[in-house]
């Protein structure tokens, strides 16, 4: 089997997150693969619908939950539209896990601040659940999550669950004008809410993922709070085809996002050419 041949996975569950974002829970059709499949938070894969092609997403479920993986996607292109057509029981392809990962064991004993925008919560959610599944290994957990409107918030049930946990500080926000009459969260852009939340940088790291503009304005806020560049992690995305450092699409300077990333510290990103 060459490296481009995927595992087959079966759709076990379909969850609509928003009007155009959906989560698929996928189980490996081969029990032996399911048994040995392992990954780390932050890694990604190439998901495919046979006949439509492949598409790159992070693995949105945590490695602490075995036997399945999840991916969340917006239907935009040919493959994601085909993925949206899939029902429970349908078979698709998956190759992975690829790329590097968040250095979780090295963060044991620290506080973690998660900052996410829009569907950028998908890769962060993997880390959140990983951390929560090993809750006693971490100190404070703060989550700041925002979307344009209430309708654009993904993983709503999980947000509710996190909000109820005493061991999680959750801040949800929507852009001004995106609120509904019964919205109980914040109204404002993510960087401003991070400033309000003001998580302590003491013994803490930040995990940031979202639209480039959100990241751009969040980084200075985190820095002001005392997070140094080497303690801010983000996950980059670029168009990919192979996922394994060959097809030449995803590089930023000499960094191949698919192999050297997708997880980078802000310090590593600052050293890259401004081309993302």
């Amino acid at each position, binding site marked *: 089997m060459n490296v481009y*041949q995927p595992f*087959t996975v079966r759709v076990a569950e379909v969850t609509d997150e928003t009007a155009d974002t959906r989560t698929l829970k996928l189980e490996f059709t081969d029990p032996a693969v399911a048994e040995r499949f392992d990954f780390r938070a932050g890694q990604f894969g190439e998901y495919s619908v046979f006949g439509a092609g492949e598409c790159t997403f992070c693995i949105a479920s945590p490695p602490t939950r075995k036997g399945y993986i999840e991916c969340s996607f917006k239907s935009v292109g040919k493959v994601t539209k085909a993925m949206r057509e899939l029902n429970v029981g349908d*078979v698709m392809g998956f190759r992975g896990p690829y790329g590097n990962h968040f250095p979780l064991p090295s963060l044991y004993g620290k506080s973690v601040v998660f900052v996410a925008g829009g569907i950028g919560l998908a890769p962060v959610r993997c880390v959140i659940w990983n951390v929560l599944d090993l809750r006693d290994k971490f100190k404070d957990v703060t989550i700041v999550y925002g979307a344009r409107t209430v309708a654009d918030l993904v993983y709503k049930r999980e947000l509710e669950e996190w909000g109820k946990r005493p061991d999680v500080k959750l801040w949800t926000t929507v852009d001004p004008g995106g609120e509904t009459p019964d919205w109980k969260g914040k109204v404002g852009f993510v960087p401003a809410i991070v400033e309000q939340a003001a998580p302590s940088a003491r013994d803490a790291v930040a995990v940031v993922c979202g639209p480039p503009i959100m990241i751009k304005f969040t980084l200075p806020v985190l820095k002001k709070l005392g997070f140094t560049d080497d303690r801010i992690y983000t996950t980059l995305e670029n168009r990919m085809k192979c996922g394994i*450092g060959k097809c030449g699409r995803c*590089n930023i*300077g000499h960094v191949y996002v698919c192999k050297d990333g997708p997880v980078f510290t802000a310090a590593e990103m600052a050293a890259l050419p401004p081309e993302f």
Partner: protein
Amino acid sequence: MNATTISSSDLSGLAADLLAARVRVAGPARASDGTVEYRHAGAPAELVLDSGVPRRSLKEFFLPPTEPLFAWRTGAGGRVELLEAPLPADPAVVIGARPCDAAGIEALDKVMGWDYRDEPWFARREATTIVSLACAGFDRSCMCTSVGLAPDTTKGSDLLLVPIGGGAFRAEVVTAKGARLVAAYPARFRPASGEAEAEAFRKAAREKVAASAPPAADPLRPWLDAHFDHPLWREASLRCHGCGACAAVCPTCHCFDIVDEPETVGTGVRRRNWDTCQTPRFTIHASGHNPKNDQPARIRQRVLHKIVIYPKKFGEMLCTGCGRCSRACPGGMDLPEVLARIAALAGGAQ
């Protein structure tokens, strides 16, 4: 270095022996329009050695323009069966490869093999013996000497033939695979001779190429690192049409696309196809955002990938100085000129 001698007629004979042994033989041969390209030869006479630079490089024998990765078949109950594409393992010998083309193949082993092994590539690599013919220097677009190579480089070759006059070649055995080829057809090779003639040929060729080639590319790296946004890229890319002719003829451009092609209802093939960084489609995100948003960014990517990115990542140049991109460009872009320009800028900056 182990060497031997072979005459032109024995080289032809070797091709005949190989074909008789059902080994595929490829090399420069004439296309229907009279131009030379690397082709599979049905008979030794089809090979035309030292006839100029073949249109496209040798890479298509190792990374074909299109190749199947696997096929799928949907069965009862939605079951999907994946049928692996057989690994290409037919033994083959390339006769008369240009050293710059052979060097490109070896350079690509790095990206094809880091961490994940590209089996179709390496299957062809292992099954293929490359017999190169030292080049006398072709035209003013040649710049192998600027990228650390030479018209007689042995990099990537299993056997290097160097003309020694009288239609004979001194054959230098570069690899074990080359030695096996010599050992398998002992009647075609004679004891080594013509060392002085070979050396003279090599020296003259190096001098010829170096005379018109731009300054060495290696020392340009610090300047390029420091001038990512230099106006050079805008000026240099004005005439670029954004086609992929340069990538198509390049011995080292290896970027590819992966596509699904349904064949009947429920069956189809996933293929990999050549692609190029010169089109907007190559890097555009699903959101519409494109990190390489205009032609200057894409030209920069091509140049940097070759002389900065790949060397940083894999320790060697992704350009063998074959000059094909300059020859093929319909807009008159010229890599030697761009490098000379960068060298002038870098020199002035010091």
